[in-house]
């Protein structure tokens, strides 16, 4: 498989990475949606930036750490951030929404410090913030592939349990599901998805891939399964459309993917409203 991946052109690598992200983000997004936690993607993406900044800084300042791919440090920070969010939600039981701004601002603050210490070019940070499909290296693609497979396995294993907990935590627990374990696992899952999406979509835009496709599919879905399947369709359409547009017009990929996603969502809302106007039930 390594051979096969090595033969890909830079553009093919980018597209493959995009397709993986377009598949997984909406699946996790569907669970975040029903648990009313989509905002967590914003907090985690910013703490992931801290991790990436730390990775870049370490590889610059110490020769023996030069091999570090900042995506890995990003993943570690994302994991820690995700668990901290869970912890903060327990501490501020009655004001759980506090957890996100706390993590988000800590993430940006730390990032600002580390970025000002490091000597990277403006372009490198720009790529991390807004995503760049053409700079997906073989190493990055491998990272996305592996985290993607792990995330898919976790979802396949715990789809039922996660759905049951999202709908009714008390019942889930009396049907023999460990809510605590599942929440931990879900935190890991979100962290994986956020950090794997970083390179293509960018830190500031990753929340969009988690939110927009399911926001669009929500318009038509009666069942949870339809939210997931519709979300994947909308997600992949946004990715493919966005990549094509950004390639032809030479515009930042992340931006184009997000704008395509927003357009899809608006179209979905309009179609739904037209349908209810014509056929009010």
């Amino acid at each position, binding site marked *: 498989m390594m051979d096969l991946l090595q033969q890909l052109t830079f553009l093919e690598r980018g597209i493959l990475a995009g397709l993986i992200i377009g598949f997984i983000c909406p699946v996790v997004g569907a669970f975040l949606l*029903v648990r*009313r936690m989509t905002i967590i993607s914003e907090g985690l993406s910013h703490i992931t930036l801290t991790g990436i900044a730390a990775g870049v800084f370490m590889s610059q300042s110490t020769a023996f750490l030069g091999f570090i791919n900042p995506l890995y440090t990003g993943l570690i920070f994302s994991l820690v951030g995700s668990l901290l969010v869970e912890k903060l939600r327990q501490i501020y039981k009655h004001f759980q929404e506090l957890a996100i701004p706390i993590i988000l601002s800590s993430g940006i603050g730390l990032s600002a410090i580390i970025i000002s210490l490091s000597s990277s070019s403006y372009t490198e940070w720009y790529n991390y913030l807004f995503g760049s499909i053409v700079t997906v290296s073989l190493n990055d693609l491998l990272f996305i592939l592996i985290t993607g497979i792990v995330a898919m396995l976790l979802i*396949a*294993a*715990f*789809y*039922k*349990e996660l*759905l*049951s907990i999202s*709908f*009714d935590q*008390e*019942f*889930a*627990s*009396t*049907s*023999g*599901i460990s809510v605590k374990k599942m929440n931990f696992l879900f935190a890991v899952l979100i962290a994986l998805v956020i950090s794997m999406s970083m390179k293509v979509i960018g830190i500031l835009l990753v929340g969009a891939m988690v939110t927009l496709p399911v926001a669009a599919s*929500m318009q038509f*879905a*009666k*069942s*949870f*399964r*339809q*939210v997931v399947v519709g979300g994947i369709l909308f997600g992949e359409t946004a990715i493919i459309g966005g990549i094509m547009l950004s390639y032809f017009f030479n515009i930042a990929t992340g931006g184009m993917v997000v704008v395509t996603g927003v357009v899809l969502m608006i179209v979905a809302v309009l179609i739904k409203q037209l349908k209810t106007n014509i056929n009010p039930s």
Partner: protein
Amino acid sequence: MDIKKQPLALNIQHLSFSYHNQNVLEDINMQIPKGSFLGLVGPNGSGKSTLVKCLLGLLSPNAGSVQLFGVDVKKFNRWSDIGFVSQKANSFNSGFPATVFEVVSMGLYGKIGLFRFLKKKHKQQVREAIEQVGMEDYIDDNIGQLSGGQQQRVFIARALVSNPSLLILDEPTVGVDAKSVKNFYTMLKKLNDEQGITLILVTHDIGAMSEYVTDVACLNKCLHFHGNTNTFEENKEEMMTAMYGHEVNLLEHNHDHDHHHHHHDHDDQDGVRREEG
């Protein structure tokens, strides 16, 4: 552990629970034999829901023990033998994208295991549970679009789908219209009569349930009474005074059928008589 050989569905011994140094439950002792249909009644804030949560292991009591089918609740792991319908069951987000089928299948999720999806057999079980509560015409409808009474039926189906031996229902008729309440109780009685499921029905609505249950327990911090329905009817007034004090209007609810109007009138007069005395 063979559940079939256990005579008791539930065994509660010296159970006490306090919250912020305030006693919510004091020394509760209760043995509930298999096959009974128990109405657990008490005023608001009497600790009914707390007791239910202790029975299900959702809360740990400060003292005493709970055994489900002879197994301490802390070690109990056969959760598919227990069905639970929570008081808050229909306070879910009504925009939640789930169909009746999906919600009812959640009752099997704990049983099926990891990496496994619903097989044909499981889907059949889900369909049967939905038919049992008469919701088969709504199987692919979104749960949020149904009426309160219909949602309640769906939650019963979710509790029934795993074929439980014990079904615990905490105030299941709150927010359900009077006519549906009667149908609902009839359905419960049928489950108890025909399938021998042990039922615990928690309610503050004594009048409506007393013609369906086999046993009654009265709770207000302590257990004031536990016995069969006939004994309860004989001692009803005493019990009620002990539990509720004087002026509480027990049956402050609107039933649209004559039988309960009768009860209602009776108790109103009763109240007046006490006030005069």
